């Protein structure tokens, strides 16, 4: 089957999740686990780096919807960065850019969190 990997690292009070490969109905539970872990650890500032994400299905998009509410309730947010045009197209079709802040670069998203903190 298609490959999917999640890499998680922390930097400056922001949790960064790097996605790699195909995020579909089969691999969506992996991302759910990652988000649940962040919630448990009370880490609400999340940047999802989609640099190596080659495909996202509706089930994959659903994962963001499932957790964004809880994260925003805790004054946090999910910000998306480094999308390929193909992946961006999927987000765009569904109108996700209205719901999420999408940045070209991971650093921009991190500094955006810092601005809000100040």
């Amino acid at each position, binding site marked *: 089957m298609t490959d999917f990997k999640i890499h998680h690292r922390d930097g400056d009070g922001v949790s960064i999740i790097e996605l790699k490969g195909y995020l579909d109905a089969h691999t969506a539970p992996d991302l759910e686990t990652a988000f649940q872990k962040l919630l448990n650890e009370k880490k609400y500032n999340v940047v999802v780096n989609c640099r190596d994400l080659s495909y996202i299905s509706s089930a994959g998009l659903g994962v963001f*919807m499932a957790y964004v509410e809880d994260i925003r309730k805790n004054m946090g947010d999910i910000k998306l960065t480094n999308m390929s045009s193909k992946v961006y197209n999927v987000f765009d079709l569904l109108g996700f850019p*209205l719901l999420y802040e999408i940045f070209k670069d991971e650093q921009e998203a991190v500094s955006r969190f810092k601005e809000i903190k100040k």
Partner: protein
Amino acid sequence: MSRFKRILLLIIPAVLLPFVYMYDVVNAAVKVEITSLMVLRELIVIVSFTMIGLFIENRNKSLTHNAPKEIGRLFFGIVLSLLAIGIAIIFQPPEFSGPDAMNIYHSAVFMIFSTFIAIVLAVVSLFILLTLRGLIFFKRRKSTRRYYLAYLIFLFAACGAELTFFNLEDTFLPQILYAFAIVLIIVNSFKQNWIVYLSKREKVYSIVYSVLMFVALNMLDFFLASGIGSNNAIISYSRPLHSFIWLNAIFGTIYFGVTFISTLFHLPTAEVFEKKQSELNSLHNLSRLVTQVFDFNDLVNTVTQMTAEVCDARSVWLELFSVNAQTGEMSVDVVSKKNITQQEIDLIGADDGTRLRRYLIDSPKVLLIEDIWNDRRTKYLKEKGFARGSFLSIPLLSHGKLIGVLHATKEYQNAFDQEDIDVMTTFADHVSIAIENSRLIAKSIERERLHQEMMVAQRMQKRLLPQKLPDTASAEFAAVSESSLEVGGDYYDVFSLPDECVGIVVGDVSGKGVSAAFYMAEVKGIVLSLSKICSTPRELLLRANDTLLESLEKNAFISAVYAVLDVTNASLTMARAGHCPVILISGDTSELVKSSGIGLGLTDASQFEQATEERKIKLKHGDICIFYTDGITEARNEDMEEYGYERLVQIARECRDCSAEVMKEKILTNVRTFIGQGAYTDDVTLVVVKWLGSSKD
């Protein structure tokens, strides 16, 4: 051999032998020494006894099914013949000496005696030969047959050499032939394989019979070698026959002598052999049972029963472990027990005694306790009144996981040997396999049931899609929807609206399978009811979003596009809720109509309202609108390449002059060809609308 032939084998000797008798009587009295008659007589004797031999052989085909019984029967025959000899010796007619000895009367009496004793001994000796053949051929090897045949050849050669008209008495030839025959007797006497397979009881019988046989045959040997008158009577009847009887008697003596000694040596191992035999039998039975796992109780009861029998255990019981899926607690069920009460079993598993069971769970290996009272792991059982003895536990493993334990106890310390461990391990393996089998069967039955349910769901869902598309003169409709799984989350509908309008909707529920199918049904209900009250596509989507926002799960959403075709005004008004753009082909131009919008169930009414815009398209004759789901554009081939928008637009443009139905088929075929060997990974839906009316301003 036919019945008639068999009877003939008896009748011919019965007719021939009296002639021999008459010849003998006359010959004894008158001394007619005619060589040709003598030769004829010997030939008749040989033919007659060969026929009797064939007759006996024919009746005794199935020998050695019960060797001791056969030997016993033979012994009985020999005792009878010895008795006959004894009687014959007592009533032997007087010596025939003197000039008047051989009158007709005397010779008639003497010849009756001689014929009788010869026939009796010949028959007995045939029985000996055939019984021995049965025993020797018990385990047939190439050499077995060869040695036996060699003996027969030398036996007959030695007998033949005795024929008086050959005049070989002065040469060494008869002696040499005898010597060879005896050597072969010795060789054949070592074919004693049948002893191994006797039970202990049968071996004891066999020892007794072989001793008796040895003694009886020895007596016969002595008689045949002696110069007693009765022996001379046989010799005078037929020298070859005498040799035949004698050699066979020697054969019997030596063979049964060897039997006696080898049985004696086999006796100590008889029990082990019997145990092995019963092990084999029970394993065979067990293997058969394992395949009939439907009656699981039967199987476990058989296992405990067999373990008790084969290992000679005092008590045996079988425990199965099951883990509660919710609490994760492990429970122990004693599924079968023999000679032990539940209370006693509970002693071992009691609170302060969990150590023993813990021990097994922690390291699922064979646990052998030589002395229950003195082993540190089971000492506590002494105070609890558990009987002394030894204890053996074999773990039942399935895929390396402990699923149960087979326990056994014996009355004495150090009572379990390696054999018991091996046997019980094999039994435990069988039970594991049977449990595994029954679980697999239960699973596959459940799977089959679910599959049936899914098939029902599939039929129901097919009925949710339109069975018939609207029929108007100015527009053609064609549609198809295929699920990648049994049920899917794609939805489309084309329905007539008031004022000569036609509603067209295509939707895609996030995710796949059953959950998507339920939402799909909900969307159909919502769209159908709203289509009657909402005047514009945008309004319908807004109100659908309100309703769905409440009922959808957080991670679920629906992308949809809704369009209203106004036949009177030749226009298509559409709004898009996060769905794939509609393809519009008009003349040589093509466009992806992607009005702004957001998926249903993603956000609240105000944001949704803000985001969603409506587009109105003026239609010209021959214009084509293609509605579809991402199952088409995201269809992937073996190289993980996506079908994409370009290919879809390309194929649609190529066949823009076709009817809607043909275009739909062509697009579908094109997608399938692109995918190649694989199946759809997502649900696929396609609706083609072709405007055939004229354009209006």
